[in-house]
């Protein structure tokens, strides 16, 4: 898991989300209903704000 998203992922899991690493290097996020929401690439570090903002929509 990308270090930039690790804290956020830990918090998401504590809120009932499912977080999974994929074989092709992504971390996937599923909400408490099991619905896919987004994925975070292991090679990028500039999408943390995108995740945070997307949750306000």
């Amino acid at each position: 898991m990308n270090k930039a998203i690790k804290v956020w992922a830990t918090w998401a899991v504590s809120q009932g989300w499912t977080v999974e690493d994929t074989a092709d290097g992504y971390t996937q996020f599923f909400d408490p209903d099991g619905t896919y929401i987004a994925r975070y690439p292991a090679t990028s570090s500039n999408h943390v704000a995108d995740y945070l903002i997307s949750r306000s929509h």
Partner: protein
Amino acid sequence: MTDTWVVILTYHEPADQQRLVRYEDALADHEAFIAALPGRGFTVTMHIDGPDLVNATGVASAIARPVVPTEPVGVEVWSESEYERRADEPTLPELVSAPEIADILGVSRQRVHQLQDTAAFPEPLYRLRAGPVWALSAVEHFARTWERKPGRPARSANAVADQDAIEPVAPASRVVGG
């Protein structure tokens, strides 16, 4: 002058994980970020360099159009610095309960319960089984504008704690209104 703009396009089109991943892969050259809006659709976020936000919106729309088959139903555009500031903003207001309000106002917890009956006291944001909670900003506003009646000086938090242990409940008619 060129700035970086963050453009968020909102689509109301049902899309499962496979489709969203396919869109994201197709927009990988632009490092687009796609997030599902369960039951509604999804958003596409792109960081675009351009002279102004109108230009950036046009560029982002043109990039997305060949990939996403429907038109967006909404668009938000921010400068990258404003976007980062918003991302760092708390999504919930800071909350306080009666004991914290007692400390802020320098009164006993009992007094806080009495103050709830006054017109100027803010309404709670939530009423939990454990008790109501208020927005800190509303309580701070109340603290700034509250006109205390003479004869009952404000007390420190320590004094309040000591007195809470021994003070009988004051009749409401004596203290309501400050």
